[in-house]
């Protein structure tokens, strides 16, 4: 079978799947699946026979995991969804991240209130991971406007990086048994202490296999003008680590804003990284003129990519999981907006084109070539 580019689009009203042949000229759209129910996380699992997973976050009837074994032509609920133990006292409020684990059918799932679950069987059964879910800090984390969410799971062998809003970055070096808050250099603007041990509002973390010690982080920026206790905190929004996440430094210089949600690394170049700077007040691009910004030297300098995007009067937000990049030789970026447009940025973001312009508000976009 010829390679297909598969897009999963998690929206306020269900999950859509779009696919195209490798030139990516015409994407066919299917869905919504789980109609009417918000989807915050999707996963195209390419281990073995490809499967697609989507969280279906039903505000009435609770959380479900949907699974497709026919590349998004149909979805069924898995036999169970993550759930806290009965005596825990917490109740699942949302499912924010789905990632493949080490075993062929292992899945990891980050939820709200911030906790981690694992499935050994492709989502049919789930167990809470106590090392982080019952961490001594867990009951001290507090929700931001989006809820207390564990939105990022980055696995690298026995290292596991978690992003929690608002909890910060947590690192495990024993495969997820134990976790340590690892936020040296990660600023917080919403507390008197600009550099607390934990409690930062991390928005997204990304890495590349070719630069094993390096991580990029989009943190909650927008605090350069703060004049209260602790003083201004310029540049805390876009960060880089070169020691496996033990310490972080700003790479925000040159960006029009250090606030934003997604951060994405080029599939073939660990030095090339993309962000979508937003004005902190409106959560829209500066000047209402959308643009993706790219660095080709690991955050040392940035340039603006906006060819084909609206030039004015655009107030959408690109949420933390709403941008991804495919693995093809000349990769394309995919960006979903809160106003329901799905954009493709061909040639690594050089040329933008709207694939679908009237979807429901988009929470999540993932891409895979299968």
């Amino acid at each position: 079978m010829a390679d297909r580019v598969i897009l999963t689009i998690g929206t306020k009203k269900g999950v859509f799947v779009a696919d195209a042949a490798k030139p990516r000229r015409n994407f066919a759209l299917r869905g919504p699946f789980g109609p009417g129910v918000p989807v915050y996380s999707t996963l195209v699992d390419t281990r073995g026979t490809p499967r697609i997973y989507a969280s279906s976050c039903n505000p009435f009837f609770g959380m479900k995991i949907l699974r497709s074994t026919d590349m998004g032509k149909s979805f069924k609920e898995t036999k169970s969804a993550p759930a806290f133990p009965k005596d825990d006292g917490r109740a699942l409020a949302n499912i924010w991240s789905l990632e493949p684990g080490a075993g062929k059918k292992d899945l990891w799932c980050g939820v709200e209130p911030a906790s981690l679950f694992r499935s050994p069987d492709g989502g049919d059964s789930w167990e809470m991971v106590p090392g982080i879910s019952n961490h001594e800090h867990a009951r001290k984390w507090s929700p931001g406007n989006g809820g207390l969410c564990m939105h990022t799971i980055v696995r690298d062998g026995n290292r596991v990086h978690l992003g929690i809003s608002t909890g910060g970055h947590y690192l495990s070096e024993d495969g997820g048994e134990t976790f340590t808050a690892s936020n040296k250099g990660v600023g917080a603007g919403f507390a008197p202490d600009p550099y607390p041990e934990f409690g930062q509002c991390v928005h997204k973390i990304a890495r590349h296999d070719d630069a094993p010690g390096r991580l990029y982080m989009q943190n909650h920026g927008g605090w350069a003008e703060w004049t209260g206790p602790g003083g201004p905190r310029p540049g805390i929004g876009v960060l880089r680590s070169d020691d496996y996440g033990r310490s972080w430094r700003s790479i925000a210089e040159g960006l029009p804003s250090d606030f934003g949600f997604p951060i994405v690394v080029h599939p073939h170049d660990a030095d090339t990284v993309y962000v979508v700077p937003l004005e902190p007040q409106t959560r829209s691009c500066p000047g209402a003129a959308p643009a993706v910004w790219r660095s080709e030297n690991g955050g040392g300098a940035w340039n603006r990519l906006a060819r084909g995007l609206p030039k004015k009067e655009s107030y959408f937000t690109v949420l933390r999981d709403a941008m991804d990049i495919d693995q093809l030789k000349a990769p394309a970026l995919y960006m979903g907006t809160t106003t329901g447009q799905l954009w493709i940025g061909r040639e690594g973001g050089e040329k933008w084109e709207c694939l679908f312009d009237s979807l429901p508000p988009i929470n999540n976009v993932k891409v895979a070539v299968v």
Partner: protein
Amino acid sequence: MHLPGPLRPYCAGASELSISAPTVRAALEDLERTQPALYCNVCDETGKVRRHLNVFVNADNVRDLEGIDTMLKPGDVLTVLPAVSGG
């Protein structure tokens, strides 16, 4: 117990279940034992009725009665309905 359409797939398509219970709480406990997949849709892990669901005894919301401790008598109709929602 009368069930709305979205919940019927979790109890083999039934639109009604017959339950013998002295209170709403006891009816939900019966549901947990006999229809666990359905129960998960009605109550969260802590045992609370999900926030955006309403439970009625006949025409009255249990919120206006004694909550889930509302007493039941033979022939009462328990209805689970989702609250209204926006766009």
